[in-house]
């Protein structure tokens, strides 16, 4: 099931979504990453981020609420410590980057231009940091500026990752008109769990986190369907609750070009390979 995305060959449509697979080293101990269509890094930020305090994981029916807070050791450490490992893999690496302003994004993109990574994904939709993409999207002018500047500099195809807590159709239009080559849909929508038995009944220190897993599948499918209706030719990395071959086919059916798996890796690191073997 080879797929061609903007001239890049993916040996199958399955990619690991940003986050749950870390930067690959740990996951590679469980599965052979080279069997994947692609691997997305955990979102890299310019400076290191310590992430949110525990708890970061709240189980819900058919899904999870996470509040990781983009823990990562920063862009320079990524280049030095993680990229050499990723370069060795025989799979397409997608670099997910997050930032607070146009300068940070541009610095990272410039440096990624000289690497082997195949696609750059701007994470403008992380639900778990107080400032960052999530708030950039609320400012349409800032969004335009960042995407325009990023696409000007980037020598790699540029994807923008959006969530559902925005006017999706309008934002998709804005980012595509300003030079994005594709969209990643969807990031985890904001969710809250209340545990009435606890002294502090609203779980998670920020009061909410991002919801992943099969519980968001109907929402994810509709986002892709709606965007694809307006932009029939756009390449989309679709994700949200994919845990089976049937799920993959459903995402392809509504118009995804590649299909990301996040939660599914947490259920069972072997799951993406089982699906690929079955496609």
């Amino acid at each position, binding site marked *: 099931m080879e797929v061609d995305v903007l001239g890049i060959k993916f040996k199958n449509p399955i990619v690991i979504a940003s986050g*749950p697979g*870390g930067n690959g080293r740990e996951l590679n101990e469980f599965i052979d990453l080279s069997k994947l269509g692609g691997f997305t890094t955990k979102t890299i930020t310019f400076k290191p981020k310590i992430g949110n*305090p*525990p708890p*970061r*994981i709240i189980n819900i029916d058919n899904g999870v609420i996470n509040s990781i807070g983009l823990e990562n050791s920063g862009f320079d450490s990524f280049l030095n410590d993680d990229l050499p490992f990723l370069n060795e893999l025989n799979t397409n690496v997608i670099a997910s980057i997050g930032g607070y302003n146009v300068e940070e994004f541009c610095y990272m993109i410039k440096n990624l231009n000289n690497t082997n990574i195949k696609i750059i994904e701007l994470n403008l939709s992380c639900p778990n940091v107080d400032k960052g993409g999530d708030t950039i999207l609320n400012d349409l002018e800032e969004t335009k500026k960042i995407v325009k500047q990023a696409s000007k500099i980037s020598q790699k195809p540029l994807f923008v990752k959006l969530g559902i807590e925005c006017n999706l159709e309008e934002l998709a239009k804005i980012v595509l008109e300003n030079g994005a080559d594709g969209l990643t849909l969807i990031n985890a929508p904001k969710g809250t769990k209340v545990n009435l038995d606890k002294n502090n009944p609203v779980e998670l220190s920020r009061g909410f986190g991002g919801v992943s897993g099969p519980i968001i599948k109907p929402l994810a499918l509709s986002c892709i369907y709606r965007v694809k209706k307006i932009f029939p030719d756009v390449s989309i990395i679709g994700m949200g609750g994919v845990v089976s071959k049937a799920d993959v086919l459903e995402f392809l059916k509504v118009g995804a070009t590649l299909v990301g798996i996040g939660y599914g*890796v947490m*259920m069972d690191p072997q799951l993406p390979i089982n699906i690929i073997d079955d496609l």
Partner: protein
Amino acid sequence: MELVKVIEKKVIKDYFVLTVETNKTFNSKPGQFFMLNLLDSLNLPKPFSVMDEKGNYLSFLIKIVGSFTEKISSLKYGDSLLIRGPYGVPIINKIDLTKKYILLGGGCGSAPLIYFSKEYPQLVKDTLFSFKEVYIQSILPKLTLFIDDIMGMTPVEFLSQNQEKLENSGAILCGSKGLLNSFFDTFPNMKNRSYVSLEENMGCGSGLCKGCPVQTVAGVKMVCKDGPIFKANEVNLEWK
């Protein structure tokens, strides 16, 4: 994940011992845990420490606290479930092997310590597998348990009255944050001779998702991969 079969289940009120038959030998070590899930579940699997592994049999000691533990408690002989593991660093890989240890477990926290005492009796000075209620004895009949309701005190109160037990020895603790805090509040100088096994809500359980952080002197570590056992004076349990 691997399919395993329920071979024995001993339930008493909110506790049960679950023994499953596996298709292979996992060679798990005390302190390690498995992620368990039900067939056809779309939920994440959940972590449980090994209480014993013998050939193709794995045993867990589980407390019913919510919907998942409720559901596995109602599995019957011959029913299947899914497991993956073992995960986490074996206790034996972390501790100072020149010392002997008091093993202090609270509730299900006793599970890995029960396994430890069986595998490494030479490293054990004494054990306090503590539970509040008497009834637990009926499903762990071969073990000497510390029952708060019988002793009329908590294990930490007992140790205050028997401080000689702690002399020249380390401690390995596994239980609620309340238990750990009460122990170190009472015996602050034990901190640099002790190890704690931590619990944290887990996502992947296998070091991928950054879901189970603990602040340590060497930065943020993952309980599932770098722990669950840590040196007591190297972790900050108050990060919030």
